[in-house]
């Protein structure tokens, strides 16, 4: 019988305790953050949408290679000797036209591994986390600053340049071969006179031809530089 009244008492007392608690909480300020209107401040090193500062990119492809999910696609074309691409903010010379720089943000796993290898610190994580799209294609971000025509143009330019260079090389090689043939002839004539030096001579000849080739390369690049410099001057004066 006493248990019966104890039960009643415990029921009433526990209910009143619970009601007291909920009544107190009626006046506790809400913890809700009204999200689209009010946004929480993110931590200092949050990792959200990738951003790519194309002005500083040298097209080194290191970020694409660091990416574990292959969400970065880069294609580059070498610049022609007479083209000046300017410098990055930390003083590196740009040498490549970046014809394609796609980040598939849908694939991105926000690991930040692409950020560290970048030599010019031009790819980094931002605090933007609202970038949903209705079409999946819109999530492939194209950061390349060149227009589509320019991209094609750069490729064509480079191919032309390569072809010219190859032609030059071929010409140089032919010239070298002709020289060699002459020398060989001379050797054949000298053979009868000095047979002792036979083993040493071909080696020196080989090194000579190599140095000649490199020399021609240097000449072209240096000449290119020499040509571009006056152009720049003209631009400035204009």
């Amino acid at each position, binding site marked *: 019988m006493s248990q019966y009244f104890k039960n009643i008492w415990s029921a009433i007392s526990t209910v009143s305790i*619970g009601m007291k608690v*909920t*009544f107190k909480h*009626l006046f*506790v300020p*809400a*913890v*809700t953050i009204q999200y689209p209107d009010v946004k929480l401040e993110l931590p200092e090193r949050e990792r959200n949408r990738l951003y790519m500062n194309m002005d500083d990119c040298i097209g080194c492809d290191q970020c694409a290679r660091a990416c574990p999910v292959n969400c970065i696609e880069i294609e580059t074309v070498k610049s022609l000797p007479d083209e000046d691409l300017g410098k990055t903010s930390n003083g590196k010379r740009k040498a490549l036209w970046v014809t394609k720089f796609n980040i598939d943000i849908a694939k991105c796993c926000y690991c930040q591994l692409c950020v560290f290898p970048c030599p010019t610190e031009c790819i980094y994580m931002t605090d933007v986390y609202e970038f949903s799209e209705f079409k999946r294609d819109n999530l492939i971000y194209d950061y390349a600053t060149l227009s589509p025509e320019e991209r094609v143009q750069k490729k064509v330019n480079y191919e032309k340049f390569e072809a010219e260079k190859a032609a030059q090389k071929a010409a140089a090689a032919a010239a070298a071969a002709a020289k060699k043939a002459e020398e060989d002839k001379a050797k054949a004539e000298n053979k009868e006179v000095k047979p002792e030096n036979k083993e040493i001579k071909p080696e020196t000849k080989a090194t000579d031809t190599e140095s000649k080739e490199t020399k021609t390369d240097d000449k072209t690049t240096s000449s290119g530089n020499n040509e571009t410099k006056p152009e720049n001057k003209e631009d400035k004066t204009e």
Partner: protein
Amino acid sequence: MIYDFFYNLTGSQILAYVIGSLLPLFIFILPFALVAVLLERKVSAHMQDRLGPMRVGFHGILQTVADILKLIQKEDIVASPNDKPLFNLAPVLVFAGSYTAFAAIPFTSAFIGSNIDLGIIFIIAITGLVVAGILMAGWASNNKYTLLGAMRSAAQIISYEIPTILVVLTLIMITGTASLNKLSEMQSGHFWNWMILGGPGLSLTKFLFIPFMIIGFVIIYISTLAEVNRTPFDIPEAESELVSGYHTEYSGMKFAMFFLAEYANMFAVSAIVVALFFGGYQSPVGYLGNTFHLPWLIPIEQFFWFTFKGVFFVVVQMWLRWTLPRLRVDQLMAVCWKYLIPIAFVNLLIVGLITVL
């Protein structure tokens, strides 16, 4: 009375009856449901340190309007295995049952739908119709969850009617009337004339009644809470077990009717408690209409006080809902048969002895 007013206005008895009977629906139940749904969400949110609806209107005050617009647009789904006539009839019956209860509730001294002598008995009897509607809905939906919910609901409502009636009987014994209008009139004056404080007059029995009245009030409050299927007695609609009980299969406006019936019921039981124990429409501190000699002001004040008290008990229901966990079925039955009914009986006997003295 408001009926005479409409009779003089329209000159037709039928029109006066129709207008009189539609009044509580349009000027009270629908606005009340709008406010109560929002209130429930706001109260629950703030009790859990949340904000609740905030985006429709200032602090979400138009949220229920938006919800109703949405419900009206919804497709009215009737699945092929449903028993169509019963399925369509059930929400109407449930709503009719809870709406009919309003007929005998005195909102003011000037307005009572039907001034019948057996008002409180009529309300309890007509609430039985709701059980039939719920069972109908549960059966016609042809779904195990709805059927389980309906069975639980029927068992619960029927068993909790007993303590309710026992407490009502106690009051009828003291006052000698079953008409809610007369009961309210008896408790006129100030709050010390209310039944919870022993009723009118200043005699020894009044003070003897007080503890038993408080016990009676607690019992009737708990049992009416169970009758309207609200937490902690919400096992018929236990969301975590039965999806949402007997109205799982309903959509659109039929669902809205169940919802409306639930909120109408909440107010109806609060109104019964108010009319029985807290002076009905009587003001606790006297009327401004009396002090300023403006007789037309009194019914408005009475309506205000009645609504105020009723809404207060509705808020307490919400407060309980967001405090207590749901009872198990065996606990539910134990509370009713082991605790409420014996105590109500003893209460009835003691009050009977005091009245004889």
